[in-house]
């Protein structure tokens, strides 16, 4: 089928199948469909949209059909994305299973693992979380100490993870566990899939400065997982984790340029513009303009990296540049939103649903340059892998 035919058929199908309630932009976290065993749909439209898209495999358009995907080429997937954007259709399903575990399983998983887990991710039946960081292993992730000891054909797992996003709402966790006690730091780690209903697994939400609790602590007390749940080989976990982190970074970067409030909109909301719509404070206006310039440069860079990748040049450590610049930019955007909003931005809660949202988003954005590898870790990677500067 030619791309043009595909585009037309896609447009017709979307037109016929996307419910009206799913054609308005998501207002915030609450409008996102994450799926999972305990998921409560926000509306019938949300449920219908997920079912119809999953039926076609379009929740994960490029995954192979036998694993619940749409089997689309990269070009077709791009057309689908464009057509969805044109009609303002929401994403039917967002999840760590789609962004992170899926790509890792496709690359490193066994046939059984793929058949067991991928279709459930595609249909939104199982919600996954990621167990990487520990209280003593943040930037130095490879020093993690959660331990798995072999007992027959099971690992007995003990330890603690932290910053596990939405662990309290998730059904399964993919975790890094030290299984080879005597191996060198980076070689003793395995990537294990664990059902959160397993006895001995428990979670506790962490309250953040934003007042929200998207992150949890996750505890393993003699929790058992079969050896068949190890992805790749025992001891190969670090390689898989690195591969997966690059997908996580791509996700965080796309946040930096996605919608949401910008300082110009904020100035209008606060009434801090003159009769021509010009931001009233000239110094703030200049700061906003410099942000716009950097955002245009960043947007152009994303396009360039994509064009280079299409031509066969690897993205490699450039992902670290994108992560560093994109997250610092997003923090600046939120800071300027707060400046433009003035005292209105300080509101913590009120009568309207969106009251307090600006402050909470601003606070949330501080994590952008910490999660998925801090800005400083990204700069280390650029210095070592791109510039090849010597180690100290």
């Amino acid at each position: 089928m030619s791309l043009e035919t595909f585009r037309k058929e896609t447009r017709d199908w979307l037109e016929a199948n996307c419910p009206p309630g799913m054609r308005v932009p998501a207002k915030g976290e609450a409008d996102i469909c994450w799926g999972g065993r305990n998921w409560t749909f926000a509306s019938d439209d949300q449920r219908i949209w997920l079912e119809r898209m999953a039926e076609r495999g379009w929740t994960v358009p490029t995954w192979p059909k036998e694993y619940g995907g749409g089997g689309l080429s990269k070009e077709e997937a791009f057309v689908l994305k464009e057509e969805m954007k044109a009609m303002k259709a929401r994403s039917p399903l967002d999840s760590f299973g789609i962004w992170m575990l899926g790509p890792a399983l496709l690359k490193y998983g066994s046939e059984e693992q793929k058949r067991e887990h991928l279709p459930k991710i595609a249909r939104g039946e199982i919600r996954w979380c990621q167990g990487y960081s520990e209280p003593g292993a943040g930037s130095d992730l490879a020093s993690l100490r959660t331990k798995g000891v072999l007992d027959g054909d099971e690992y007995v797992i003990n330890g603690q993870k932290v910053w596990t996003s939405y662990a309290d709402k998730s059904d399964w966790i993919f975790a890094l566990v030290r299984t080879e006690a005597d191996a060198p730091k980076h070689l003793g780690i395995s990537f294990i899939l664990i059902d959160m209903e397993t006895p001995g697994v428990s979670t506790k939400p962490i309250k953040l400065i934003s007042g929200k609790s998207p992150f949890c602590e996750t505890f393993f007390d003699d929790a058992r997982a079969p050896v068949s749940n190890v992805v790749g080989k025992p001891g190969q976990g670090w390689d898989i984790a690195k591969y997966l982190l690059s997908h996580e970074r791509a996700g965080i970067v796309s946040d930096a340029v996605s919608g949401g409030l910008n300082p110009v909109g904020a100035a209008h909301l606060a009434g801090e513009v003159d009769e021509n719509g010009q931001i009233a404070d000239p110094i703030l206006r200049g700061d906003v303009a410099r942000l716009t310039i950097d955002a245009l440069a960043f947007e152009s860079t994303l396009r360039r990296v994509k064009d280079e990748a299409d031509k066969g040049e690897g993205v490699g450590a450039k992902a670290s540049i994108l992560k560093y610049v994109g997250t610092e930019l997003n923090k600046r955007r939120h800071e300027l939103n707060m400046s433009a909003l003035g005292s209105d931005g300080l509101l913590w809660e009120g009568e309207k649903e969106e009251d307090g949202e600006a402050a909470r988003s601003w606070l949330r954005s501080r994590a952008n340059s910490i999660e998925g590898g801090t800005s400083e870790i990204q700069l280390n990677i650029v210095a070592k892998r791109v510039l090849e500067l010597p180690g100290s």
Partner: protein
Amino acid sequence: MSFVLNDEEQMLRDSARSFLSETAPVTAFRKLRDDNNPDGFSRDLWSSMAEMGWTGILVEEGHGGVELGVFAAGLLLQEMGRTLTPSPFLSTAVLAATALRVAGSDAQKAKWLPKIVSGGTVIGFAVDERARHNPEHINTTAKKQGNGLVLNGTKRFVANGAAADAVIVVARNEDGAPCLVLVDCNQKGVTRKARRTVDSHLPADFTFEDVALDGDALLDGAEDTEGALKHILDVGRACVAAESLGVAEQAFDVTIDYIKNREQFGVPIASFQGLQHRAAHLLSEIEMARSIVMKALRTLDETPSQAPIWAAAAKAKATAVSRLATSEGIQMFGGVGMTDEYDIGLYYKRAQAAGEFLGDDAWGAGQVAKLSGY
């Protein structure tokens, strides 16, 4: 729109890089400076650029050019930025050629474009009258008088002004609307004063006192001269942004090379995290500048109506990044970075001057705010 070079562009860049590094390296620039060359550039080099077709890069084939477009012109300037090569390329082959192309009559094009292509003339582009760039601050007048015009006013720091045979002057007509007139520098009533700048270039200040011009001095081929002027300036901005980018890239390369080799405390200073993070930050910024300069150049070729905001943003970003890269360069070189013997200081000076030309980062930010409607 593609953010990668096609084969033809790749070849152009490679050949420019090898030509400039052999014929016009930084040592050649130093010699022009130390010899107090009265033109501020090498006439031989200008002839070679004509032989290679560079002078005709924006000129249609009918007038002897190769018309490769603004993106290609930017690629050449990026390479000239790397070698700090002074030449009339930007003023004559980019600004004057574009002015004639978009605002010249057929007769004016036929008269002047072949001369530009042959390397037989240097033409300055005179816009600014005050210290900081602002194309709205025009007090120079070109008013009708009989069948001709009379020109009055002053222009400051006209690039390549010292060597120019003619200048294209931005003036206001009797209705106060912007117009463009092409003036021979030997015309009666024209006085010029060469100004040596910090980057060892030789612009000139011009005074026009009751200069009597023929009617055909007025570039009247455009339906909308004001729009044409904006386009000419945007082409110039995107191209000088490309030069600034080249300055930044080369300054960065020599700095990284230096810190890998310079040893203190018994180790290369590049092993210290205090320098590593600054270097990695700089590379990130240079990557951003590279992308937005490409975007502005391509937009001028492909969808010029959308170009103004990209040209302003690219100019601002390239200005800021080239100044950052060169000032960080001096700091990382340490004491020797302050000496005339090392090249990094020359890059620092050019970054300042190129950044100022046609609007610096503050000016660009103001434009971006205006064009974005806030």
